[in-house]
């Protein structure tokens, strides 16, 4: 579904990604862990071209995402993204946050979009917040709304960029629960996170990234029980 070939990304002189090759199949849940500055987020952001790769190829289904003639806006409709800092639209109510993209892009009528949005809000138990504004919500609520906003586009894959890192500890659970439910529903997911419990429970594959490379890829059982790379062993000894 997503294929990455020899992906490089530099910011000026700083090489962040040094040749990533990876393939994600439909329905897989890929969890990426690694120390900060290892390039995890940059890798994720290259997938929907929020960062433009310096070289290499990113393919989504049969479209080259970073191809010269690709309409990136079309590709992005199918790739939802959830950010560390939620990035809800502060000037819009919750319901408008969710319906803005599908209505503006004429994928759904206003009524249809609103109905979908309310159904999604019900799914995350936030129906009563439909008319609230982002500033009135807690971090956990904002992040659940952000997930719903992406889902409203009916994407084929969801990218999560450290979705729980900016949350107070007691709110992490409610967001992870939504993500778990989403995983169970069969969604293809790529998740950058520090939540090892989530990785263990949900991931089909766990990746370890450091210094711009994928150093290890394994099933969660093997990944946590028998880490091979010495740097992963070191990393796990610190976080577990």
């Amino acid at each position, binding site marked *: 579904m997503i294929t990455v070939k020899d992906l490089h990304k530099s910011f000026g002189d700083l090489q962040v990604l040094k040749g990533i090759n990876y393939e994600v199949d439909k329905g897989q849940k890929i969890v990426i862990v690694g120390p900060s500055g290892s390039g995890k987020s940059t890798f994720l952001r290259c997938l*929907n071209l*929020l960062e433009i790769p310096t070289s290499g190829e990113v393919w989504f289904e049969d479209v080259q995402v970073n191809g010269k003639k690709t309409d990136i*806006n*079309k*590709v*992005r*409709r199918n*790739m*939802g*993204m959830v*950010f560390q*800092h939620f*990035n*809800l*639209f*502060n*000037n*819009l109510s919750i319901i408008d946050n969710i319906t*803005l*993209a599908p209505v*503006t*892009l004429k994928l759904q009528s206003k009524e249809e979009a609103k109905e979908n949005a309310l159904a999604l809000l019900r799914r995350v138990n936030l129906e009563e917040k439909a008319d609230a*504004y982002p*500033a*009135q919500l807690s971090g956990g609520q904002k992040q659940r709304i*952000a997930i719903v*906003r*992406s889902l409203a*586009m009916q994407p084929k894959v969801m990218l999560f960029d450290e979705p729980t890192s900016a949350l107070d500890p007691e709110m992490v659970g409610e967001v992870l629960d939504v993500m778990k439910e989403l995983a169970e529903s069969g969604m293809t997911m790529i998740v950058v996170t520090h939540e090892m419990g989530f990785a263990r429970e949900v991931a089909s594959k766990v990746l370890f990234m450091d210094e711009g490379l994928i150093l290890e890829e394994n099933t969660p059982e093997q990944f946590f029980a028998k880490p091979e790379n010495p740097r992963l062993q070191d990393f796990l000894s610190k976080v577990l």
Partner: protein
Amino acid sequence: MTATILLASTSLSERFYNAFIEADRWKLYLDGLVVTLEITLFAAILGVLIGLVIAFMQLSRRKNGKHSIFSLLATIYVDVIRGTPSVLQLMIMYFVIFSASPFSGTVIAIISFGVNSGAYVSEIIRAGILAVDSGQMEAGRSLGLTRATTMRKIVIPQAVKNILPPLGNEFIVLMKETAIVGYVALQDLTRVANLIGSRTYDAFPPLIIAAVVYFIIIKILTILLGKLERRLRKSDNR
């Protein structure tokens, strides 16, 4: 002896009477005020239009910090306007650029102040847009919205709240700045006060009257802007 006593004892109220009521002089202030307001209003409108264009030209600067041709032109414009006194800009417009044009002095003053204000307004708008968290744009783009749509529906509505207070301030500065149009023979409020002072041989009352008029207008403007600002914030966070 009697004469000197009389002159010295001319009361303050008589002096103000001479400067304001005598010979219907209040009409002159009114005419002057109309000129001041006319120049301020139209220059402000022109300034906002120019400021908008220049701000977006500056924002066309590439991600790596390199200038595009638009941002380069805009930067030069802002530099030149900010780097020279506005009274000189006005005189250059009046005596050089438009010296042979059929435009009236008021129109030339409007153009000059509009061009001047546009540079400052562009910086206000640019800063106001940049102050909106970049995550807002990223979120919009990640949903498949175009840059322009995200700007229009998300970034600019939020930027307006940042822009409004300093923009109001810019209007106030602009209004006071128009007091220099006397240099190009326009009879605005300040110039009128000056003329009346030389007619009555008493500078104090007309200058005070003019100052009070400026103060009142600007006070009203401040109150209105404050109200507008509060209303915008209310609709945002409730």
